[in-house]
């Protein structure tokens, strides 16, 4: 499972970074989204995946039993919320740029040609 997650995270990072190097705004934003999802999966897999166990300790005497680590999950939850807000902002910014120039090619916005 960890291996699969690691491969998925790697693919998401590679695709995200590749898209961020493109000139089109839409691709840049999709790249940002992929990158943040890639880091979420990386957090999950780096902290270790526990199968079929609750992230809570039900009774004090159960402390010896294996349980899923809740911290990475809460980190990912926070990161998802932040990523969502940032992505929404980037979309609005891109929309405004598209409105003012009629293009989504980053090079047409440059100070030299504006």
């Amino acid at each position, binding site marked *: 499972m960890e291996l699969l997650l690691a491969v998925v995270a790697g693919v998401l990072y590679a695709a995200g970074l590749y898209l961020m190097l493109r000139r089109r705004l839409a691709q840049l934003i999709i790249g940002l989204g992929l990158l943040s999802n890639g880091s979420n999966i*990386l957090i999950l897999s780096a902290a270790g995946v526990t199968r079929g166990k609750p992230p809570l300790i039900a009774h004090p005497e159960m402390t010896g039993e294996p349980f899923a680590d809740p911290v990475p999950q809460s980190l990912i939850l926070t990161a998802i919320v932040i990523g969502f807000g*940032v992505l929404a902002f980037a979309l609005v910014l891109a929309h405004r740029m598209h409105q003012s120039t009629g293009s989504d090619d980053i090079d047409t916005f440059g100070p030299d040609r*504006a």
Partner: protein
Amino acid sequence: MLLALPVVLPLATAIALHFIPQRSRLLRLLAFLGALLLLAAGVSVLVRVQYAGIQVLQVGAWPAPFGITLVADLFSALMVVMTGIVGVAVTGSSFAGVDPRREGLGYHALIHVLLMGVSGAFLTGDIFNLYVWFEVMLIASFVLVSLHRTRAQLHAAFTYVGLNLLASAFFLTAIGLLYGQAGTLNFADLARAWPERRTPGLDAALSMLFLSAFGIKAGLFPLFFWLPASYPTPPAAVGALLAGLLTKVGVYAMIRVFTLLFPNPSATVYTAILVMSAITMVVGLIGAIGQHDLRRVLSFNLVGHIGFTTVGLALWTPAALGGSILYLLHHMLVISSLFLVSGLFLRQKRTTDMRALGGMYRAQPFVACLALVPLFSLAGIPPLSGFIAKLAVVGSMIESRHYFLAAISLAVSLLTLLSMARVWEESFWKPAPGQAHVAHPPRLGAAILAPVAFLVTLTIGLTLAADPTYRVATTAAQQLLDRDGYVSAVLGNGVLRAAR
């Protein structure tokens, strides 16, 4: 409770500002008062830390490695005070008038959200919490930069947003890998646990990830190109806020994370920091000389001088790190006041292109003299604060036998002097060019000069109080290098003894 104030006060102010009718004088007054309170809170934290040692607050009374911890050592406390000072100057400058469309879109509240993010980043003792504060600060700055932008300026905003989000992704990746190996996020707990659990490969990878993430935010070579592209476009007050605070948070995070997690000064990453800092100084200042727009000159100067603030980390001695901290304090004051000065030109001549400026000394000699102090201070003319800070940094380089580095720093100082002399000559001294004449240029009143005067007074104050400030900075550096002190302050004395 005191430690939470620098975070809670701006938040409360930002919320309160939403209930004030837009475009009223009360709005600006409240924003200003909020910043004053932040400054007062910062000063009281500094006083407490100075006399009683490192202060720790376990938020929600959760014991240290489990909950979020707020920690103020001297370095954090100094930075919070500087946040308050820059906040006061920037909110104070809004009395002279803000673009009404901006004000209607929550300009004042956004400034306070940004101040909250910056103070939070300086005070947190938890690495994931640091990431969250970074994001709070960034999203506020994104909105401030892109409010009502024209077409070319939107491009700058997008460069800024894209690269900073990339840096955040790197930071988050590093946190994920760190947690996977160390199993904790608390700085003190990490400092204790990480050296035992690290593997050389992961250690190198993590340090490089942190270096790229913070290097982008701080504006180090070769990661700084977004900065001169985006800082000159927003209004001068926002420029002062960004230039004075945001890059410095990157430097702060770099110093904090590296001193606690990578306490091995012979590691490759420190050579990398050393080389990057040196190249940053040179490239930044050479870039500044080729520019014609005042705000672009300042942005390149900002980049170049960041090198002085990170070089102390690479040298890893209390004197060098203390020198860098002193430089950081001086630079925050001077660069924000210079960005506010560029706002004076923007108001009077509607441009900051130096070819169209001039005649300021003849028209308003007092204003010109006011601007002369930060200009010369940045260039490092004795006896101003820039000279003292440079002396501390270069002295520590010679002490640790980095003669070549010291030579580079001195050459860079000459370049800064050249660049500042050009700014003085072009924008203040030469006669105003005829064709760029604005009919009835508005005289600069007390309201717009007061924030500049405030920062200039503090720069002079820093010069006069150079000896005590340098001692405080050196003590802060000693605290940074004393990891055990930090760990036992946060986790309690028993932890270290149990580990041994």
